[in-house]
């Protein structure tokens, strides 16, 4: 029995798992927040899809003999269409859009000539398998793809060949930027090393906005791949975010401003050499701006650390906190005595606290478990995140104001871009 909001999802998912004709009954949506009487009324009423009495249908599902189709075994390969399409440029733009192969915005048409030019930017062979991707681990089978598949998507996003190794590195992780959940989640990538200069990425004024080709296109390629390489991003089937998220268009691409940062670059923290080009992945709820926070208006020196601590207040502890600090903030924190990223992380662990009572009211924050939890009462004050590695810091921005942004996101992994050149 499935609530009607998940009708398409339930049917297609049963089919993908090998039971295209599974007998599914539907109840009205939602059941969460309804009274017992209201739910019982659902049972006495009809299945909103079939229009038949709901419980009669459930009993019949379990007792009506199977048809020949329902008993079928064997293997089916879902086709994804012809390898190439031929038409006028205008018709092809429309065809790609109508068939869900785009983000509903214009693309560069992936002609063989353009795809070949893209392929020249890597030493890897066109038919080499790059990875596997699924819109949600465990819920959908993963699709695989080759260097050439990635190149086609890179062309479509507007990439020049220089960007291709970075896009291959993204594809190699198998991380979809359009994760299927009823939460409308977002993805971010931090870029470090010489690739930032080689691709002329923007880590200055407006770094996360529409002001630079590499930032824009690499982020967009990730979303196009998340639709085309794994069958993801189909609203109601492989994408269930109730409200959606604007950031899914181009994702958060954050090249670190290494030269203006007083701290170790992010990839070096993760064990890479400064001269390596690396892309690091984050995943979580969203990003917000810090300038509303308490403490920033303190005189004469803004209390950046207090604002950062206050601003994570509404964050879910399911994911961590990623701070994107303008270089002015990083230097300002230095003036306040925080000389390394670890210094500020350790201060935040100690000083960012929450009561057990509050945690219990937060849907995606779990109260502590284990032996030490036995002594806690509702009024106990506990760290929001007990571990310093829940806090991550990247320095980025054009130094026009000492502002920070912060994301309720967790670090996932870092991969070498150089490996894909």
């Amino acid at each position, binding site marked *: 029995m499935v609530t009607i909001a998940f009708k398409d999802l339930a049917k297609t998912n049963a089919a993908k798992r090998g039971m295209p004709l599974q007998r599914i009954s539907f109840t009205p949506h939602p059941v969460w927040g309804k009274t017992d009487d209201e739910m019982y009324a659902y049972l006495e009423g009809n299945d909103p899809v079939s229009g038949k009495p709901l419980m009669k249908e459930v009993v019949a599902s379990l007792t009506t003999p199977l048809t020949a189709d329902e008993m079928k075994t064997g293997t089916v390969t879902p086709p994804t269409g012809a390898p190439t399409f031929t038409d006028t440029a205008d018709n092809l733009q429309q065809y790609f859009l109508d068939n869900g192969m785009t983000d509903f915005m214009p693309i560069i048409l992936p002609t063989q000539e353009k795809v070949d030019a893209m392929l020249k930017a890597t030493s890897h062979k066109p038919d080499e398998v790059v990875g596997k991707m699924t819109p949600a681990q465990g819920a959908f089978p993963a699709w695989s793809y080759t260097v050439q598949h990635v190149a086609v998507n890179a062309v479509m996003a507007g990439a020049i060949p220089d960007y291709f190794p970075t896009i291959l590195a993204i594809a190699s992780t198998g991380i979809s930027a359009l994760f299927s959940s009823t939460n409308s989640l977002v993805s971010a990538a931090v870029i470090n090393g010489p690739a930032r200069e080689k691709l002329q990425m923007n880590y200055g*004024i407006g770094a996360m906005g529409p002001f630079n080709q590499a930032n824009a296109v690499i982020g967009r390629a990730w979303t196009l791949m998340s639709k085309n390489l794994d069958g993801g991003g189909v609203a109601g089937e492989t994408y269930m975010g109730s409200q959606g998220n604007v950031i899914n268009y181009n994702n958060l691409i954050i090249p670190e401003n290494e030269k203006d940062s007083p701290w170790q670059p992010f990839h070096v923290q993760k064990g890479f050499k400064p001269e390596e080009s690396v892309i690091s992945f984050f995943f979580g709820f969203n990003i917000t701006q810090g300038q509303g926070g308490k403490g920033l208006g303190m005189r004469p020196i803004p209390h950046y650390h207090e604002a950062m601590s206050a601003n994570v207040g509404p964050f879910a502890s399911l994911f961590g906190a990623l701070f994107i600090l303008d270089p002015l903030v990083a230097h300002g924190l230095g003036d306040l005595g925080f000389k390394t990223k670890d210094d500020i992380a350790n201060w935040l662990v100690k000083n960012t606290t929450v009561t057990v009572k509050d945690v219990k009211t937060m849907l995606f924050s779990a109260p502590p478990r284990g032996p030490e939890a036995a002594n806690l009462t509702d009024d106990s004050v506990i760290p929001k995140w007990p571990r310093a590695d829940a806090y991550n810091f990247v320095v980025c921005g054009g130094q026009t104001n000492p502002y920070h942004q912060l994301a309720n996101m967790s670090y996932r992994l870092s991969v070498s871009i150089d490996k894909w050149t």
Partner: protein
Amino acid sequence: MGIPSAPLVTKAFKDLAILNAAKRGMPHERICFTPHPVWGKTPEEVRAYVEGPDPVSGKPLMKEIVDALTVPLSDDEKKSGMLSVSVGPPTFTDTADNLQEFYLNNGYTDFLPIIIPTEEKVDAMMKGTSHKPEEAVGKMAAGAYPAWSYNVRQVAASAVMAGCKPEYFPIVLAVASSGMASLFSSTNSFAFAMIVNGPIRDTLEFNYGIGALGPFAQPNATIGRAWTILSKNLGNGGIPGDTYLGSLGNNLNYNNAVIAEHEDASPWVPFHVQRGFKKEENVVSLFRGLGVVPGQVARGSSANDNVQFDYQMSDLFSTFTGFFGALIIADPLVAARLKEQGYDTKEKLIDWLYKNTTQTVKDYKSRNYAYLFDYPRALRGDEPWASWYKMPDDALIPHFPHASDINIVVAGGQTNAYPQAGNLSYGVSVSIDKWM
């Protein structure tokens, strides 16, 4: 004023200061620069700036200031008259690939592929409106700059580039006519949102269901994108260091938050009707602010209790600036539940949220926007800030100065009872029908 003045500017704003003086008619204004920043520096550090050199000219700063006020004017500096500004020829001719690159390299795009605005396509776009190609649409400035003007044809070129269909054009024209740019010059990295109401949501197949704010429908994607492209081309916005200064930038500036209201599933009056339009009118309403955050993470969101909406929103608002308001984007499931709890109008809910989302005066005064915007208003006697600044530290005051700073819209696919909230202020509502 007729009195010699020496603008003293921190180095981060060098290009901005020079260009802005020029745009306002003083291309040779004598501007002196100090190192950046002065905010957060001690008086001793700042004294060293004063005793030291201008970081741009390398000359001693104070000598330069005195010279700026006393060295006689050159002939150029005394010039008056009109100066015209060129934006290049009316058309460009080249291969499709080269034009794609040319538009990108000249800052006409958001750095993503466009539909090349050939005369044929621009003409087809203009078939989406009854208004004449040369009719003036409006004026736009990306901040405190002289505004640029534009006609229907110029708007059409940006609409084509963004990937709009001709049917979408009246909405793009309505947005352009507001004169509100989606790229605003501030060191804050502003975000923008639009709410679309009326039957056009269905005619154009807007997505107001699952994934409403995401990349899942052509009108949502391209109309939002057109706003940014036209803000660059028609309002001269989005030039980093000149007409765009957001230190970190904002990802929402690519496509903006386009919110088609889910009117059928909402228990409340649609947003445009709240603003005095008829239900059957098509209206676009524009918002500006800092961004949008998810509500299901906050305190009070737990499944174990009944969702405590006031507690949830207080928690989200605690990080919002009170300079902008709040735009709550409620999934229809959230709206239905709130109605069951007795909030049968948006106004009732807003009034209750205004009264119940509070902060202490002490916390309030520690916020940057309070010092920067509200304190000077308090000094001038403006309310409610003047009263707030007289209250004791532990007094509770509302998070937002007025109940009208809070707005509510319903959108979403009902897969979960989650709200989102934007730190966004209402700007203006414009009739789309007027531009049909």
